[in-house]
């Protein structure tokens, strides 16, 4: 029983409730801005005015995605990688940064999230409002009928207290299981937010690994993973497979050497490669 009632005293339940209810207005806002900007930009591209419109849309979308990331992090506790300071990240010329912005996979993952936010937001809102409405109406109908107000279930008019009790079990069930159902439902939004907004570009992973190796010297995969978790946080964006693939990519580009003779688990910076 305490398992069923504990969500009522947990702050997280109310944060999740707020996130799910915000899904509809924010979904409309995100979808409208992104679709309007992209259609306008693509439509005007032949006149060249479309190019700045597209870039502006992408910049706005990135800002919206940053807001959504913070929202998912604070309300849903969605795991997100901690970003490196901008000075380490945004190196290169204006052209290189612009190219990274337009062709970066993260940009399009974020745009994808903003587009999916509307259908998912509608579902989030509908599920939440339905759960709350069923729980409250089940309890309210007997009171309302006792006060002399007639109500109905389809074509069946409920005008006696005994008849109104038919709602009560539904209300009790949703009152007991509703918060748990809502928390379970929010896992979908949480997962989507982590996979699309918590996306790490390969160069970010490589920079993070090189940074760890530069600080700790030679280390095995477990040590590097621990250090990365301390820096970036724990989540599906940082897995042994992801780290192994990053190390392989760094190895092939000559930044690290691994599995050296006599020290098979050690990954080290190649001499003079930085």
């Amino acid at each position, binding site marked *: 029983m305490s398992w069923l009632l504990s969500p009522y005293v947990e702050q997280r339940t109310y944060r999740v409730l707020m996130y799910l209810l915000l899904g509809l207005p924010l979904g409309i806002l995100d979808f409208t801005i992104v679709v309007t900007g992209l259609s306008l930009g693509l439509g005007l591209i032949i006149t060249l005015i479309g190019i700045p419109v597209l870039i502006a849309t992408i910049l706005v979308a990135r800002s919206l995605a940053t807001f959504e990331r913070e929202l998912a992090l604070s309300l849903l506790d969605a795991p997100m990688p901690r970003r490196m300071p901008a000075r380490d990240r945004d190196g290169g010329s204006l052209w290189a940064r612009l190219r990274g912005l337009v062709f970066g996979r993260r940009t399009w993952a974020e745009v994808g999230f903003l587009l999916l936010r509307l259908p998912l937001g509608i579902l989030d809102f509908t599920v939440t409002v339905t759960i709350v409405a069923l729980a409250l109406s089940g309890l309210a109908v007997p009171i309302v009928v006792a006060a002399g107000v007639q109500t109905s279930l389809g074509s069946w008019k409920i005008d006696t207290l005994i008849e109104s009790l038919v709602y009560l079990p539904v209300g009790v069930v949703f009152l007991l299981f509703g918060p748990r159902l809502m928390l379970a439902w929010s896992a979908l939004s949480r997962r989507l937010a982590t996979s699309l907004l918590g996306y790490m570009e390969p160069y970010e992973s490589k920079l993070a690994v090189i940074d760890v190796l530069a600080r700790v010297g030679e280390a*095995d*995969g*477990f040590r590097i*993973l621990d250090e990365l978790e301390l820096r970036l946080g724990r989540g599906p964006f940082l*897995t*042994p*497979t*992801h*780290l*192994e*693939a990053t190390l*392989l*990519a760094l190895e092939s580009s000559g930044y690290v050497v691994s*599995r050296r003779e006599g020290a*098979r*688990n050690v990954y080290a910076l190649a001499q003079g490669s930085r």
Partner: protein
Amino acid sequence: MDEFGELSLREREARRIARRQWFWLHLAVYGMIQAFLFVIWLLGSASYPWFIFPLFGWGVVVAAHAVYAFVVRDPEEIMIERAARQAGK
């Protein structure tokens, strides 16, 4: 293969198993709902076969899920396996 490589391999296997389990669950839900819709059609007028629309519409999604669960592989997975093959040569 070192210990970290083994951990990484186990993680990929777990992910693969989870993907397949989700597919079987999806297929079971699909099968039950389609059977339910077919029974409704049969008990009803049984004239216009409207049940084929969800059967094929959702069927396409189930087929795409099957491809994702059994055929599609992570680029990282491909990269690691290719490197392991090269190291084995």
